[in-house]
Structures are given as structure tokens and as C-alpha cells.
């Protein structure tokens, strides 16, 4: 215990020391914005932002969409958590999206969004995001801004080094943060060392539709795989994963996993492994994991349990995997736009490690190895290391890049962003952030072509930055202009959940193809209607299925009788509108679910189990028109023993009967 206290004490001293000599200046945290910053972030009413920022919601499980430079919040896309606002995870159609091998999991811990790429540039087709707690990767359509696919990752725990995409969207990766038995089994935790494994999964992406599939899983030594980035340009074909706990400790990790002076970056030649797999390599192993897909045709998700996964042992593909020693417990693992430099942010080290891809190639050729770990060659530090950035700050976490050869690194402990030149490893500028910054983002960050005008720092603590809201205050993002030599702070804006990481892209790559409505005549939902004449109510045993329509400003039918206590009533509701921005909602008194918010042309379903007799109203939950308040209806609920037959009307007539005459 004493040693821990001592080390914390010395860390504090170190922080104080660093601050006093060239650390962030501690004048006022309020006067940090220069004169014309407001002008630079002002987007006049009716005008549009130049960039989209997709900011992860961290423990909210969602993905928030902001505009840059204004910092305005446009939408929260539900991904891994239920969202009553959009009925995601509540409607019968979206419930399958949250199915896993552990059953229905209504919450997730979303981390790293990454945008699909074509030829090394972000293309604005899809954004991928990982879930840490129940290992999953989701794909979100940037036409509809809705989650279209979620795939669970087997043999993993804490899917953290994820979901980064290769430069032609060949693969999105998942890596286990926690080493676990592979496959899971009942065993003593103290026997962990040498018996646990770390799964690195490569999910192929269908180039036309984006559908994911676990192509192969590498069974790595039982270290913790923290973060990752793909190679690009000359290093395309490789993937780099930072590791910690190469000690393979299993208790009091803050101490026991921080003993080695160097941990590793695992360099994976995925092209080589892909080739091995395509030639029949690897072994199919039983594995239970969910694969959920959404269809915009049926407006329904499908949940399928997969039964096996293809596993590759590193020893079977010699020359495909190497370890690069990297200063202490690296967190971020970042590759610069040229693909030459691989930066390991040793969060506990004083120096940042910069590796060279060219040197790595040569070292492999020369067999400049320093032994091996579980059969995987460890490249000699000097043979791969390009250099180190000495004493840049305290607690380096993540680095992003501009196109002018600079890196921007966040320092958690010293709460700052440091700009440095990669070639000569010299610090150019440093700027305090408020406070405790995690990731930072430059639009197009994980690509060959960063759009280096803006940088966003994502902070964990805000304390005095905003009006207080009780013990829980917001977390925040801070926008910087990085077009000049010095970084300029422009704006703070609050974020939902924990803004873990973000992905940014120029608005023009997404906005023009944003979907406006779903076409009714393309709606293949089983219970869809294309006009009011097709609406009806049908009893099947104790199930009552209502095929209902909604249009400004009424439901059809709007009077229903013959429902009984103990029935299960399905509201299958179609929005007949075909006009942009005219959704309707529906909810029913006593329904143990959320409302439905239904876009034009879409069908959605909720269930209602009436427990009391009476005449119960339902209504539109979205202020849709001048007569929104009148958009309502009634259902009569009779006792279980009643023999009242199902009947339904709109304005006194059965919908559709006139037309048949």
C-alpha cells in the first residue's frame, strides 16, 4: 500500500514539475478564447455546418451527431442501448438488434466510431462503432443515420481496440481488451498466465452493402489489447494493436500490470493471414454469437445466432505477426497519414515511442529479434524505433495527425494537447484543455487525407466550465482551429454520455444523399398498408393484430371494439405520409413499452396487454400538424368472458368497404 501512495505522490510531484517548466500556462481557464473565435464558430440561422462529427456516447451506448464548427447537436443515433425517443429496442422490429448470446442486452458501452474509406479517404457511406462490455461492432448507415447491423464478437471481453477500418474498407477489427479463456470455460483465475488468450477479430465488409462477417479470429497471447490502427499507404495490409499487461497479472492490475518497462505493439500482417485463410487455413471452432441485421425493405431486424468462427493460431502463419517493444503500457496506437510512423502512447511513460514501418520491414528481413513471446518474434527496440518524444507532457493517450507532418497528442494527467513535428520529434505548441482529455479527433483522422482545419478534444471532466447540474455535470468537447502554427481554442460544447472518441467528415460527403422518406410502395413489412382501405383488425386466439395507418391528422381505424382483458394487442402502424420531415408517433395508455416514432412510409409495431376493462385512448405523440391534438382514437376493452366480436371503424364506416362496392 505504501508503495502505491509513494508512486502517486511522485506522480504529483512530476506533474507539478512539468507544469512549472513549459507545461500548460495556468493563468485563467476562461480567457483562453481569443478575440475572433466566436466569428469562426458562428453558423448563422439557416446556414449549415461544414463538417459532421460523430461522437460516441460512451456509457450511453449511443452515437451523437454534431455539426462543426457550431457544436450543435443534431441527433443521437441509438446503437447499443434502448432509446424510447425513437422506439429503438422497444418496437418489435428493432428488438432483435439488441439480441446477443447473453440474451436481450438493452445497454452497451460504445467507444470508437470510424467512417468507411475508399482509397484511403473517408467516403461517408457507413460509420462503424464498437461496444466494449458485450463485445459487439455496429454498422450505421449514413443515408438513414440508423443502425443497420450489429455483430457480436465471440471469445472476447471488453472489445476496446476496435472498430477501426482499413483504407478500402476491407476489414473492421475487434480486439479483446481483457484476456479470457478461449473458448470460455470454468477454471481457476489464478491459473490465468499462459492459459488465457486474446482474440483479435477481422470482420470483412461487403463493398456494396457493408454487411460484416467475422472472416477470421487470431488467437493471441493473453495480454490486454487496448487500441489499434490500420496501416495505410506503404503499410496498408498491416494492423497495429497496442497491448498492456504483458505481465499477465490478474489482480490489483494498476500495480501488477504496470511492472514491465516495455509492453508491445502487435503488428499483424492481415493480408498474409487473409491469404492463409483463403487457401483453407485456420480451424473452425464452435462459438456462439449474434448477428443482427436491419432491413429497410421490411423495416424489420433479423437476429441470427452463429455457431462457429474460423480461428488462426499465430504459429501457423510464420512471418505474419511481430511484437514491437513500446514504452510502458501504451494506450493509443496511431499511424500517421503516410503509413510510415506508428506511435505508441505510453500512458505511464515519460517518453512517447515512434516506430518506423520502413525500419520494421528491414528488421524483419534482418531477423533483428530480441527473443519471442509465445512463439511470436519480438523485434529489437532499436531496430524498429524511429525515435522518442521526450518529456512531452504527462500521460499521453492518443495522437491524430494533420497533412503537414504534425502529430497532436492528448495528455490525460497534464490536461493538454501537444502539437509536435513527427520528423524532428520537437514540440511545436501546447494548449491546456478543460479537463482530463481522452481522445481527440481531426476529421478524416484515421485516413491518408485528414481534413486538418479543426481538431476536437474530448474531455472527461468539466467541473467549473458550465452551469452546475447537481453532482453529475456534462462531459465536453473542445474545438480547436489547427490551420495555423499555434492551436487556437474556439469553442466548448457539452456532449452526451462520455464523449469517448469521434469521427469527422466534410458535410458534402454525406448531406446530399441523406434519405428523406421511405417509399410506401417499397414497404415489404408483413403488416404494412399502403392506404386506409387496407387497414383492419384481426383476432388470432388471444392475439389481436391491428393493421393501422396514420396520416395528417388521423389514424385508421380509430374506434376498435372486441378487445378483451388478457389479450395481447399488436399495433402494426404504417405512416402513409410521403413528405420529408413528417413522422407521426403513437402510444397507448398502459402500454409497457415506448411510443413509436414512425417515419413517412415506414411500419412499426408495439404491443399492449390491457389489464383493465374500459375505453382507452391512444394518440399521436409527435406534434405533426395543426390537428395533432385531434389525432387520437379509442379501444374498448371488455372482460375476458365477453363475447363481443372484433369491430373497427373510421368515421362510422369500416375502412375499405366503400371502395369494394
Amino acid at each position, binding site marked *: 500500500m505504501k508503495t502505491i501512495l509513494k508512486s502517486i505522490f511522485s506522480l504529483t510531484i512530476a506533474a507539478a514539475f512539468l507544469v512549472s517548466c513549459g507545461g500548460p500556462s495556468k493563468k485563467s481557464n476562461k480567457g483562453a478564447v481569443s478575440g475572433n473565435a466566436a466569428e469562426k464558430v458562428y453558423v448563422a440561422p439557416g446556414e449549415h455546418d461544414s463538417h459532421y462529427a460523430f461522437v460516441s456516447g460512451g456509457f450511453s451506448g449511443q452515437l451523437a451527431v454534431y455539426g462543426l464548427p457550431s457544436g450543435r447537436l443534431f441527433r443521437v443515433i441509438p446503437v447499443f442501448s434502448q432509446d424510447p425517443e425513437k422506439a429503438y429496442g422497444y418496437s418489435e422490429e428493432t428488438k432483435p438488434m439488441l439480441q446477443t448470446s447473453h440474451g436481450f442486452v438493452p445497454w452497451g458501452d460504445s467507444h470508437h466510431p470510424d467512417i468507411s474509406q475508399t482509397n484511403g479517404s473517408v467516403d461517408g457511406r457507413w460509420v462503424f462503432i464498437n461496444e466494449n462490455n458485450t463485445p459487439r461492432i455496429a454498422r450505421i448507415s449514413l443515408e438513414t443515420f440508423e443502425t443497420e447491423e450489429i455483430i457480436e464478437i465471440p471469445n472476447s471481453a471488453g472489445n476496446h481496440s476496435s472498430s477501426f477500418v482499413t483504407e478500402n474498407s476491407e476489414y473492421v477489427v475487434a480486439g479483446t481488451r481483457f484476456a479470457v479463456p478461449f473458448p470460455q470455460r470454468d477454471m481457476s483465475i489464478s491459473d490465468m498466465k499462459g492459459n488465457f488468450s486474446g482474440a483479435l477479430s477481422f470482420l470483412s465488409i461487403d463493398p456494396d452493402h457493408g454487411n460484416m462477417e467475422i472472416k477470421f479470429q487470431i488467437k493471441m497471447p493473453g495480454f490486454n489489447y487496448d487500441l489499434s490502427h490500420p496501416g495505410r499507404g506503404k503499410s496498408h495490409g498491416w494492423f497495429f494493436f497496442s497491448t498492456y499487461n504483458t505481465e499477465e497479472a490478474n489482480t490489483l492490475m494498476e500495480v501488477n500490470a504496470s511492472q514491465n518497462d516495455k509492453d508491445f505493439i502487435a503488428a499483424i500482417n492481415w493480408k498474409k493471414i487473409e491469404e492463409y485463410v483463403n487457401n483453407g487455413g485456420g480451424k473452425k471452432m464452435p462459438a456462439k454469437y449474434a448477428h443482427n441485421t436491419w432491413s429497410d425493405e421490411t423495416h424489420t431486424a433479423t437476429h441470427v445466432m452463429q455457431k462457429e468462427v474460423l480461428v488462426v493460431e499465430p504459429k501457423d502463419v510464420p512471418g505474419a505477426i511481430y511484437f514491437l517493444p513500446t514504452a510502458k503500457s501504451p494506450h493509443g496506437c496511431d499511424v500517421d497519414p503516410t503509413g510510415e510512423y506508428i506511435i505508441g502512447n505510453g500512458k505511464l511513460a515519460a517518453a512517447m515511442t515512434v516506430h518506423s514501418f520502413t525500419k520494421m520491414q528491414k528488421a524483419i528481413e534482418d531477423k533483428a529479434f530480441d527473443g519471442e513471446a509465445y512463439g511470436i518474434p519480438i523485434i529489437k527496440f532499436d531496430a524498429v524505433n524511429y525515435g522518442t518524444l521526450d518529456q512531452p507532457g504527462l500521460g499521453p493517450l492518443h495522437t491524430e495527425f494533420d497533412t503537414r507532418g504534425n502529430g497532436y497528442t492528448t495528455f490525460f494527467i497534464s490536461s493538454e494537447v501537444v502539437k509536435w513535428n513527427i520528423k524532428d520529434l520537437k514540440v511545436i505548441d501546447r494548449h491546456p484543455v478543460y479537463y482530463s482529455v481522452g481522445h481527440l479527433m481531426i476529421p478524416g483522422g484515421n485516413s491518408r487525407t485528414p481534413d486538418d482545419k479543426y481538431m476536437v478534444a474530448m474531455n472527461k471532466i468539466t467541473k467549473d466550465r458550465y452551469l452546475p447540474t447537481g453532482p453529475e455535470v456534462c462531459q465536453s468537447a473542445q474545438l480547436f482551429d489547427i490551420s495555423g502554427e499555434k492551436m487556437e481554442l474556439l469553442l466548448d460544447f457539452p456532449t452526451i454520455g462520455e464523449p469517448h472518441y469521434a469521427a469527422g467528415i466534410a458535410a458534402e460527403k454525406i448531406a446530399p444523399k441523406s434519405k428523406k422518406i421511405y417509399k410506401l410502395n417499397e414497404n415489404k413489412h408483413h403488416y404494412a398498408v399502403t392506404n386506409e382501405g387496407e387497414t383492419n383488425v384481426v383476432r388470432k386466439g388471444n392475439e389481436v393484430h391491428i393493421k393501422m395507418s396514420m396520416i*395528417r391528422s388521423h389514424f385508421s381505424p380509430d374506434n376498435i371494439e372486441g378487445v378483451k382483458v388478457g389479450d395481447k394487442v399488436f399495433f402494426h402502424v404504417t405512416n402513409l405520409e*410521403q413528405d420529408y420531415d413528417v413522422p407521426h408517433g403513437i402510444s397507448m395508455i398502459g402500454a409497457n413499452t415506448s411510443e413509436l416514432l414512425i417515419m413517412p412510409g415506414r411500419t412499426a409495431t408495439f404491443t399492449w396487454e390491457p389489464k383493465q376493462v374500459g375505453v382507452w385512448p391512444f394518440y399521436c405523440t409527435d406534434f405533426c400538424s*395543426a*390537428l395533432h391534438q385531434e389525432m387520437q382514437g379509442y379501444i374498448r376493452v371488455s372482460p375476458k368472458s365477453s363475447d363481443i366480436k372484433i369491430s373497427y371503424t373510421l368515421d362510422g364506416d369500416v375502412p375499405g368497404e366503400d371502395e369494394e362496392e
Partner: protein
Amino acid sequence: MKKSRLLMMVGSFLLLGLFIFPLWNITLEAPQYPIPLGMDIYITKFQDTHEFDIKNINLMNHYVGMQYIPDTIPEFKIFPIVIGVMAFLGMFIGFKANYKWFLGWFVLMSILGIAGMYDFYLWEYDYGHNLDPKAIMNFKNPDGSVMGFQPPLFGTKDILNFTAHSYPLVGAYFMFVGMFMTFIAFFLGKKEASN
């Protein structure tokens, strides 16, 4: 061939443009429609300016009890016949007949055109005044009479929260230019005859 005959033939041929291009357009602007709703009128059909515009015009109009814009009207059968006959008649006259017939054709075509516009006016009047007595909203003019929602025959007019525009489109310009050419053909023919 004489210039006048050529002009007469080409002029009446241009009427056939009405089979390809829309004759007229009605556009409705409102604050909540940054992309205005519009309807193109052909001699054979009504068509959305943007997909689903007519459906959305109907939806807006039901508040004041206006009828739905019909899928088809009897004029869509008559207009193509009239235009087809007049075009071929004009070309035949241009090819064969005395230049005096050119003026005859022009006068007939003008009468038909005016009749068409009158028909259009009647349709608009009915559309804008024949309101459902159970309409959700009833509006009265300052003089106490029931407000009508008739779009303008030609030009721009404010109707409640909408600004309605009614203007000819490409097909109509083909017709106007064609008719003007036949009119010139008559004078040219007269000049050629006197020489």
C-alpha cells in the same frame, strides 16, 4: 418550296411538342415547404414536380375541404386529339393549301386555345370553390362570403399561407412559337403571292 409554306409546316409541327413537354405548372410556396410543392400539367396528365407533390398538395388542401386532384380528367382524352388534328391539319395546309388558309388555321387554333384556357379556368374555379361543407377550417372573405382557394389562371397570388404561381411551361412555349410562325407564314405567303 416557298418559305411561307415551310414556316407554316414547321409552326404547326411544333404543336407536337405538347406531347412531350408539360403545358403548365402550378407551384405552391409556404414557409414550411423550402422546396415548394408543384404540379406540372401535360395535355395527357398531371404530374408531380417532385415525387409525391400532388399527394402532399391534397393533404394540405384537405384542411380547407378542397377536393383531391383527380388522377385523370376528360380533357386528357380530348386535348391530345385536338392538338394532333390541328398539327397535322396545319402541316397539310402548309403543304397544299392557299396561304389564306394559314390565317384560318391560326384563328381556329387561337379560338381553341382560348377555349382551353377557359376550360382550365372553370376547372380551377371548381377546384378552389367546391369545398367540403364539413371542412376542418372555414375562412371567410372580409365581405362575409366563403373564401375560395382558386389558384391564379396566370401569375402569382397569395392563398392563406401559400403563394401560388401559375405559369406556362416548355410545351406551351412550343405552341406559342409555333402559332406565331404560322401567323408570320400568312403575311409571308401574302407577300409571295403579290410578287
